[in-house]
């Protein structure tokens, strides 16, 4: 399988994109911002179509759109977390913009029959060039490093913003920084798994890891491991089964991991790992 260059490229890009998505996704789930992550993935779609409509590089449109909206969502700060109605409203409009760009793009270029839109929506990990794959890996590693740099204060700010603020942690700046990293990863991952499937790599591994353990660093590692594992297994499955698209396979495996974690969580009679009660500080905090 690895004899083919396109598979090697897919594995190179996929591994690091999944690593970044898994690690960030764990924080996204912890901060109850999955809806914001979902919105960002649709922003990536609108941004890419916008770039295609004007005729500039798609990657430029992706990064510009996700970083701008990411900063905006992060700037809303505490309110963004509670207020999914605002996110929903903004994001409904962005979908409308996507429809506009799509119509301009499709009517503007005679040769394009919407294939570009499909590629943006659902990704083309098996069609990456060696340069694309390397770039994806570099961006993903940079995002992981940036996340690692702010991980400790971000964890504190996510678990208990009040206490964090009292200790002098810049909660708001961290929120914006986190969304910028998320935006960069969303833009890069769109090339690989596609805008619409990105959500699966953010939500499923993070959600599964949170069901499996309350320990923060273990959970972070688990989420990244599940994401990378889903990517590897998904790519392998889509290579073996002809009609199975790579994106579907990857999301399918990640969903299966989440389901397994949820079932394990429900049937288990005893409390979670780490000797805490079922009403862990982590879980209880988020409910507020």
């Amino acid at each position, binding site marked *: 399988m690895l004899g083919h260059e396109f598979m090697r490229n897919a594995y190179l890009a996929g591994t690091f994109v999944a690593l970044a998505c898994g690690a960030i996704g764990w924080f996204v789930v912890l901060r109850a911002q*999955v*809806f914001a992550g979902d919105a960002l993935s649709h922003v990536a779609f609108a941004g890419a179509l916008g770039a295609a409509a004007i005729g500039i590089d798609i990657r430029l449109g992706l990064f510009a759109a996700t970083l701008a909206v990411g900063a905006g969502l992060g700037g809303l700060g505490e309110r963004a977390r509670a207020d999914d109605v605002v996110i929903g409203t903004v994001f409904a409009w962005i979908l409308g913009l996507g429809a*506009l760009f799509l119509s301009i793009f499709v009517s503007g270029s005679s040769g394009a029959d919407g294939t570009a839109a499909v590629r943006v929506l659902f990704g083309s990990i098996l069609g990456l060039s060696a340069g694309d794959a390397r770039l994806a890996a570099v961006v993903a590693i940079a995002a992981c490093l940036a996340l690692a740099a702010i991980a400790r204060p971000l964890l504190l700010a996510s678990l208990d913003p009040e206490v964090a603020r009292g200790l002098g942690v810049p909660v708001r700046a961290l929120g914006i920084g986190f969304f910028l990293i998320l935006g960069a990863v969303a833009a890069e991952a769109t090339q690989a798994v596609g805008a619409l499937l990105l959500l699966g790599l953010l939500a499923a591994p993070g959600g599964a890891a949170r069901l499996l353990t309350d320990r923060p660093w273990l959970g972070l590692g688990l989420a990244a491991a599940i994401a990378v594992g889903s990517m590897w297994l998904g790519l392998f499955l889509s290579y073996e089964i002809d009609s199975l698209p790579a994106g579907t396979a990857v999301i399918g495996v990640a969903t299966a991991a989440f389901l397994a974690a949820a079932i394990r969580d429900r049937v288990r009679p005893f409390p979670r790992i780490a000797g805490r009660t079922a009403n862990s500080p982590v879980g*209880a905090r*988020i409910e507020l």
Partner: protein
Amino acid sequence: MSVSTPHVSWDLVTDWEQLTAYPFMVQALEAGAIVAVMAGAIGWFMVLRRQTFAGHTLAIISFPGAAAATLAAIPIAIGYFGACGLGALALAAVGRDGRNGRAGESAAIGTVQAFALGLGFLFVGLYGGQLAGLESLLFGTFLGITKGQVVTLLCIAVATLLLLAAIARPLFFASVDASVARAGGVPTRLLGVAFLLLLGMAVAATAEITGALLVFALLVTPAATAQLLTARPALGLVLSVVLAFLVTWLGLGIAYFSPYPVGFWVTSLSFGLYVLVRLAVELRHPDRGRPTARPPGRGRPNVRIPGQRTTAAGGPGQRTTAGGAGV
């Protein structure tokens, strides 16, 4: 309002005659009105219940449903309703897990959505080739509606609205304060499932016309605007329906005279309205947070406020430190 038709005359009567000259446009206006009334009413409850993520996910789920129906060569409406019904049940099952709170629930909803999209992509791939059809699945065919579709849509809308009216009072009560409602004997869980099913029905009926991605705009934005404007439930519901109706017809009208798609105009008009209202509200009451619908003080004298405390403390996962109480 007359600014809405910049490319044509200022005479609105002539404009209206132009607009209704073709049957496809009349049917689009009829369907748009039905969809707007239904989405405005259901969306008001969706926003009140803070279930926008679930609503968006249901809207997305209609896409694999349609793709599967196309693949299996069965009527596409069956695909929409089947997928949205299943999706509503899946979301209800997922939301049941109260122990993990909002974080766990949103992760689960996100996973459901991503998986549904993955399936949709698979079905489109299996169907092969016809990628142009994908856009109409996602962005709708507002201008290609038949008379029969309008009649079907009307029947579904009437059924949905009647069912909604039947559960409206307890649903409102359960949405505003679940623990008090539960203490008062309201079956909040059952109502939650019923509401998700109604939402799924409305989305399935709407998705065929507006497309999977844009259903959401009619559900969330007019309702959010209405809830900014008034905290009174009956007024808010009416306002939400009226706003949804206005943006839909205006959007259709503008799109008719412009080269850009209906979806763009409908979402832009409703978003613009939302931003204006939000600015106006914040200018008038700079210190006040966003008003949310609350039951009017005179209603329901049998609401026992002390009961709230006991039930809330009895629920699982509520044992927290006081730190975040101010949220």
